[in-house]
């Protein structure tokens, strides 16, 4: 009964609403008529009406008539509207600009007529101009519509640019589960060099000078990054561009992450290899190797011979970085400046500084890194494993996914998470480092596994004399004693790790080359903090 009543009321409120709408549509009509004559306007207001149904407030759109005097700019607009002849004189220059942009695509009369029409509709002159250009050319930009790269800001849209491709590389990315080829690189003009992403193949090549229409800018690493989309037009031109000679930005090696340009570093060349590569039909010499400073090491490629050699300490200005096989790489060519320094940098100092893990995560990898953190997790798949004798893959139940049934070779490994409170990386320890950290041997762990009945002795026919021929179960290994022992020994312990880091979809992984359990220097750490606190007071 109560329900029925409320229903009725609710319907009632709906019909009132309908009535109001009718009245308002008439008012709206009147508004149009009054607008120019009286200089008054009727404005819309949204009013919340509480209906009975469900007691939820509903927003009903209702127009409440009210009178608002025109603002001064609107009055000016009206005056201009009544004086079309005067306006057309002022628009002369705009029409000329449009004619420059569209060329022979339209007559001056058409352009002028269209422009006036847009302006009569209250479209601001600049927008009207763009609209007309688009109408006739489809291409919305004259040379004056082009922006210099130095003045591009994040979120700029419909950008017109002229620039030189400094670098470009192809990448495959996952977009909603689909593989997509994209092109990343750097584009520069006299004012700046910016990174770009092309979401389709425009056939861009290094040193091309291109006119770009309808690009947009996003933000990456605090800098604007250009995007060339499906709707962007790219046209090669014969213009020549003198790239900006802005001051190079100095970096320590550990801070180099992919996508930087105009980089300056002071490094020691640790290794150098000369290689011949084919660029198009030309054969070119490149120099690759490893370089570093005390913060870290990085792979490099030089596209030019700078007359420097292994062991030299050099300053490089105007290099750029990209991602190569999951780690950052420094690249420089004839546009860069490379000079020998008199500085002494002993090899054993290179890359010896301990690095906060967040830096490795931000850089997405690195070479010969020194990190210290706590093992906060030992993951499944750690401990005693068996490898295929042919391909070295870890096998399960005596079967290799590639080579079928094989006699596995026992091995040790640990997959762990190392975390220093600023970041976390996966770390993979091999047999040597596992033995070093646990203080146990592969043989010892095999015995442990056999004695616990988890692994049959036949898995390895030597070294386990006394239990040879044991007939435990099938040839498989459960996670168990060895993994547990490793967990007991290592989880929550601080470790010092040296290795190469690379990134993939699961984060950053360090392939450990050397590792030690850290003996905490508690007293020293405490004194350091106390000293800092004193300084703070």
């Amino acid at each position: 009964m109560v329900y029925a009543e409320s229903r009725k009321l609710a319907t009632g409120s709906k019909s009132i609403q309908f009535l109001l709408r009718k009245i308002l549509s008439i008012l709206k009509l009147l508004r149009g008529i009054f607008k120019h004559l009286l200089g008054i306007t009727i404005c819309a207001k949204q009013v919340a009406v509480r209906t009975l149904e469900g007691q939820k407030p509903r927003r009903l759109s209702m127009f409440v008539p009210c009178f608002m005097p025109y603002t001064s700019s609107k009055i000016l607009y009206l005056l201009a509207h009544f004086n079309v002849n005067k306006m057309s004189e002022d628009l002369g220059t705009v029409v000329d600009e449009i004619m420059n942009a569209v060329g022979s695509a339209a007559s001056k009369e058409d352009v002028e007529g269209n422009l006036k029409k847009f302006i009569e509709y209250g479209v601001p002159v600049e927008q009207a101009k763009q609209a007309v250009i688009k109408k006739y050319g489809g291409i919305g930009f004259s040379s004056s519509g082009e922006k210099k790269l130095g003045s591009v800001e994040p979120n700029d849209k419909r950008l017109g640019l002229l620039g030189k491709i400094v670098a470009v590389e192809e990448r495959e990315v996952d977009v909603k589960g689909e593989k997509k080829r994209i092109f990343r690189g750097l584009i520069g003009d006299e004012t700046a060099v910016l990174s770009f992403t092309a979401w389709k193949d425009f056939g861009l090549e290094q040193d091309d000078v291109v006119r770009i229409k309808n690009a947009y800018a996003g933000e990456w690493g605090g800098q604007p990054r250009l995007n060339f989309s499906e709707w962007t037009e790219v046209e090669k031109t014969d213009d020549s561009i003198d790239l900006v000679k802005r001051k190079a930005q100095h970096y320590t090696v550990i801070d180099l992450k992919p996508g930087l340009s105009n980089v300056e570093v002071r490094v020691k060349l640790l290794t150098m290899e000369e290689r011949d590569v084919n660029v198009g039909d030309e054969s070119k010499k490149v120099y690759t190797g490893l370089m570093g400073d005390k913060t870290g090491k990085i792979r490099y490629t030089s596209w030019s011979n700078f007359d420097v050699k292994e062991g030299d300490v050099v300053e490089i200005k105007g290099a750029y970085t990209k991602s190569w096989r999951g780690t950052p790489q420094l690249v420089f060519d004839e546009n860069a400046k490379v000079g020998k320094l008199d500085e002494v940098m002993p090899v054993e100092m290179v890359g010896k500084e301990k690095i906060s893990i967040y830096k490795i995560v931000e850089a997405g990898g690195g070479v010969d890194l020194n990190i210290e953190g706590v093992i906060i997790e030992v993951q499944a798949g750690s401990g005693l494993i068996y490898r295929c004798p042919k391909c070295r893959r870890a096998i399960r139940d005596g079967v290799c996914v590639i080579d079928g049934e094989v006699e596995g070779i026992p091995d040790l490994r640990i997959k762990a998470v190392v975390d220093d409170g600023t970041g976390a990386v996966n770390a993979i320890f091999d047999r040597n480092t596992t033995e070093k950290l646990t203080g146990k041997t592969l043989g010892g762990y095999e015995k442990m596994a056999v004695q616990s009945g988890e692994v049959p002795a036949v898995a390895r026919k030597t070294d386990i004399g006394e239990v040879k021929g044991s007939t435990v179960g099938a040839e498989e290994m459960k996670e168990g004693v060895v993994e547990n022992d490793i967990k007991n020994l290592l989880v929550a312990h601080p470790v010092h790790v040296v290795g190469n880091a690379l990134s993939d979809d699961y984060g950053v992984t360090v392939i450990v080359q050397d590792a030690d359990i850290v003996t905490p220097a508690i007293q020293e750490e405490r004194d350091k903090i106390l000293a800092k606190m004193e300084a703070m007071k």
Partner: protein
Amino acid sequence: MREPALRVFAGEYNEASHVLKGEMEKTPSYVITPLGAKANRLFIVGVLTDVENVAQEGEMWRAHISDPTGIYSIYAGQYQSGPAAFLSQAETPSYVAVVGKARAYEPEEGTIFVSVRPEMIKEVDAILRDYWIVETCRHTYARMEAMKEAIGMNPPSVYKLKELGYPQLTAEGVVEALSVYKDVDVEHYQFLISEALSHFESGKIEYVKELGEAEKKILEIVKQCEGDEGALWDEIVDNGEKGGLERNLVEEALAALMDRGIVYEPILGKLKTA
């Protein structure tokens, strides 16, 4: 990207009354402390003081872990089977290390209780606990510095903090904290750190250092004497004393080595290295 396990004192964590909820599925949630720790995951080492099953039916273990500045509450239910099993049998007091997720419980608007849901918990020794305390002092101090920088900025900027060398997470946490907490009292955390450091005034560290060195020496001795049969207990102690180690220190060191499985006792009275 894996969320790092933050080092935060209970005294700071328990003051948190702001949560950043992940808007979409799979985006992480964070507890934001007044000093700007942006915690999704935590690493804690402290003293397990009490454990209680608080569930009406089934299992929900609540435990308290004490650090020099306050007490952490942790909750482990059926979906944290490892930690729940550990807690059901844990002895108190004991030193434990916990890796866990930062959780917040909001019984009513404006009231937030923070806790930790453990992913891993294990017993550790006093050395690791002391190490955690100094590490946590260091991290707290770094947040204090970032907070001071941010307070001096108008407006506080994540980008500028990153330029000064702070990690993204610290920068974000500090800026977020400034926008939600009124009058962040940085001095208070200086007090917290000195409170934590006063834990070391009692001369424990000397002892810990001695024990660590004794362990190394003893391990060498065992290796020298073990042969195929294993080294005799008395032989080790004698050799240890010759090496300038006190008898009870030798025994302590041996016990510690055996606890960690580095030395084992295949036959009673005889010791071997693993």
